[in-house]
């Protein structure tokens, strides 16, 4: 019999605290797969966000630290500057990265820090109970937009990938999702590519992953995946926004 599923060595064999159907677990797994395949487990350092993925250091089987809410790109900068031989990635949610931590991500990206950032966009604040995020869609109901997000009051969802892709310091940007096997594979390839570019010293790589939060979207896991396909992708188009390697 051939084994079709093996847990990546870079992922601990523990139960996570994520809700059923949550995207965080899938993204963790893809990162762990990429780390295994690139053979960098013993020189990778991850940075967990403040958000639902705060306990990522209990799940990854390599060195991980926490960062204050939104500050992971600054922490990553300090690490990479001090030890360029380590492979540093920041894992961040949309509140962490696009609200409180917007300054840190923009400037780390613009400096072209040789780090990788994995951005889990679930259009909502999971950890604090489903409030509006900068990426919440127009009309989307959340704890703090009970009548749905209104452009006139709350502005429109921020497209972080497009924002960052314009900086010369940014070398790779792709927006992916994990709704079906094809997309999952694409996400894993993008994560692997960002890490490989860092290994080769090619600079800042950014992967945005549209990810379900069934709990605070108030949807069954399967319906939540459909929501991404039917509504979210329209606001946040999938695809590669930048890859300096392509041009050659």
């Amino acid at each position: 019999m051939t084994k079709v599923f093996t847990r990546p060595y870079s992922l601990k064999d523990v139960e996570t605290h994520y809700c059923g159907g949550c995207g965080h677990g899938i993204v963790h797994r893809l990162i762990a797969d990429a780390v295994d395949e690139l053979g960098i487990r013993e020189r990778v350092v991850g940075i967990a966000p403040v958000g639902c993925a705060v306990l990522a250091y209990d799940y990854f089987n390599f060195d991980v630290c926490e960062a204050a809410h939104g500050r992971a790109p600054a922490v990553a900068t300090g690490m990479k500057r001090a030890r360029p031989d380590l492979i540093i990635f920041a894992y961040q949610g949309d509140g962490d990265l696009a609200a409180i931590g917007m300054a840190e991500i923009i400037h780390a990206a613009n400096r072209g820090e040789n780090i990788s950032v994995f951005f889990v966009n679930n259009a909502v604040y999971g950890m604090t109970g489903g409030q509006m995020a900068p990426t919440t869609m127009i009309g989307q109901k959340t704890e703090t937009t009970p009548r749905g997000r209104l452009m006139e009051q709350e502005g429109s969802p921020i497209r972080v990938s497009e924002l960052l892709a314009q900086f010369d310091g940014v070398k790779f940007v792709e927006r992916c999702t994990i709704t079906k096997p094809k997309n999952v594979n694409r996400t894993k390839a993008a994560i692997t590519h960002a890490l490989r570019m860092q290994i080769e010293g090619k600079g800042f790589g950014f992967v945005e992953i549209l990810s379900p939060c069934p709990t605070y979207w108030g949807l069954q896991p399967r319906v939540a995946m459909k929501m991404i396909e039917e509504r979210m992708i329209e606001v946040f188009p999938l695809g590669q926004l930048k890859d300096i390697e392509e041009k050659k």
Partner: protein
Amino acid sequence: MSRKGLMCGNEAMAEAAITAGCRCYFGYPITPQNEVTAYMSRRMPEVGGQFVQSESEVAAINMVFGAAAIGARAFTSSSSPGISLMQEGISYLAGNELPSVIVNIMRGGPGLGNIGPSQADYFQATRGGGHGDYRTIVLAPASVQELADQMFLAFDLADKYRNPVMVIADGVLGQIVEPVEFSPKETANLPKKDWALTGCSGRAPNKIRSLVLGDNELLEHNRKLQAKYRAMEESEIRYESLETDGADIILVAYGSPSRTCRSLLKKYRQEGYRIGLFRPITLWPFPYKALAEAAHGSRMVLVVEMSAGQLVEDVRLALLNDSIIRLLGKPGGEVIQSHEVQSEIEKIIEEFKIKGR
């Protein structure tokens, strides 16, 4: 090899950090400590180190966090408004037990205040500043040489206790130019940084976190931190007690006001008055016991500070006798002039009929 030269406090502090083996400096410009960022931008590349002009003090302190987490010696400096922005990060550094050095060249506040020299961040530095039950060792130099020496000490203490250490000085000390000598000291027996995130090669993964959710776990973590703070109180108190034995009047001051007091000391001693100076060098842990001993039997203790009454609170805690404490506190980013101290001393001499020669 030791090197000598004339330098302003800000540059001396920066060079001392490099001599202490620090190769990571992150900072955001703010007066009156802009010489540090300028100096580091030039000097760090020369020694193979890293300088980042960060986008904010929030980012700077978190860059320090990152460098400290992988085991490097890192420091940042700023002035009062910038240090306020760093408080979240300092709390995280304390909670995560990351060795790090933060220098505050204080200016007048509150708010944007002014750029004059000040000591008004005493509470912020000695009482925590950020959230949670934590302490930072706080060193207070009174000369350019001492500022440089304290940078060596700060890095060592940070490593020894796995804790952030602050050096605070008023703007005068950042700007004043004095002779300074850098003599790298061998640092004895600092603990190995086996907790650092260096990649889990040949060992189990390390994690650095301050989120502690298990039953009683945070209580235990806090108890461990508190035990560390008690050890600091046991071993790290530093002060200078000058001619306080049998003195009628004792001046208490740190930083540049202590220099003003010191020069007055000479004048009054020559006139036969018994007057002494007590200078705390660690503001936390504060030398409560030493001050109580020094002030024993004195008629009046005059606290001189460039703030409205912050240091005086520790003096009150030390002496537990308000009737022998006077305050000359000057807020607003203003230097305390010698004649102002002198007039307070004259008042005390008159009131208590203290005799000179």
